[in-house]
């Protein structure tokens, strides 16, 4: 069982939270709007916490001091990057994963030691294979 904090409860954040919750992990989802939590299923056993993921008080409330994993999937690349750097360098979270839409920005932060995924690059690749296949 892992403790996981997910920042951003959009389609991706909520679906990831649901998957991990079903597998028995202890999940906390953060979002600035309570309306976003509608994406979570009724039987979600984790915690939905209202607050800003760049705010130290909110992060502590979410249990960042003893979490195993921190994932940032808000709509803002910069917000995700900053949150992940706080998790990694201030709170020493062992595993930090970040979504960065901009592939160039992703490349930079990979060199700075942030594990980052660019859906833009991945999706373009998938589409290319579909087109060619």
């Amino acid at each position: 069982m892992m403790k996981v904090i997910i920042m951003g409860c959009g389609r991706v954040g909520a679906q990831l939270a649901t998957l991990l919750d079903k597998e028995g992990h202890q999940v906390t989802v953060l979002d600035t709007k309570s309306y976003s939590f509608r994406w979570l299923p009724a039987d979600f056993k984790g915690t939905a916490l209202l607050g800003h993921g760049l705010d130290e008080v909110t992060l502590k409330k979410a249990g960042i001091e003893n979490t195993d994993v921190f994932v940032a999937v808000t709509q803002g690349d910069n917000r995700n990057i900053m949150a992940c750097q706080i998790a990694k360098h201030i709170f020493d979270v062992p595993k930090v994963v970040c979504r960065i839409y901009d592939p160039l920005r992703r490349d930079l932060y990979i060199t700075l030691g942030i594990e980052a995924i660019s859906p833009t690059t991945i999706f373009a690749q998938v589409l290319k294979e579909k087109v060619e296949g």
Partner: protein
Amino acid sequence: MYIIIVGGGRLGYYLTRALLDEGHEVLVIEKDATFSQIINNELGSVSLHGDGCEAATLEAAGSGRADIFITVTGDDEDNLIACQLAKHKFNVPRTIARVRNPQHEKVFKKLGIDATVSTTNLILEHIKHELPSHPLMHLLDIQEKGLEVVEVKIPPGSTTIGKQIKELPLPADSILSLIIRKEGKPTVPTNSSVIQAEDQIIAVTSPESEDELRAALIGE
């Protein structure tokens, strides 16, 4: 010097004007086309329309030859990422970021930003200074040394009035540098200087000793 500013809002605008007046070469990167145009119309062609968090924009701005890179947008995350980009991709020697959430100052420092200015803290300090219950004001942070320059105003009725400096239990890492009297010239304090009501005392201290220093000077 060549100075790049990210953010052409009110702060960016006045900063640009001040730096141009000092004779620097300045470029403001502004996301909003209208704001960018206004700056170009009013200050001469010194604004580039674009996103200061994108490498392509910083490339077009000639960041590789910039001496200082300053971010003053209203979003802490944008200020951080733009500064990191300037530092790590374009090797700009000095990066300065505006910080709105005071908690983020230590984050920015830890992440390698050379200097931060917390606009929220600055305003708070100035408001607090006007309140009689807060006789200590921060004048300057010496960030590299972990020291600060502060001013303590001696309120009338303080128990230290009439005492000599040597009688006060001052913290070991605080140095009194100047006494500004209501009347007469400012003087450099000695051990036998006597505290008077309304004195403004300028001191250098570590942030940790700040409360102890204030208590020693006003006799709490």
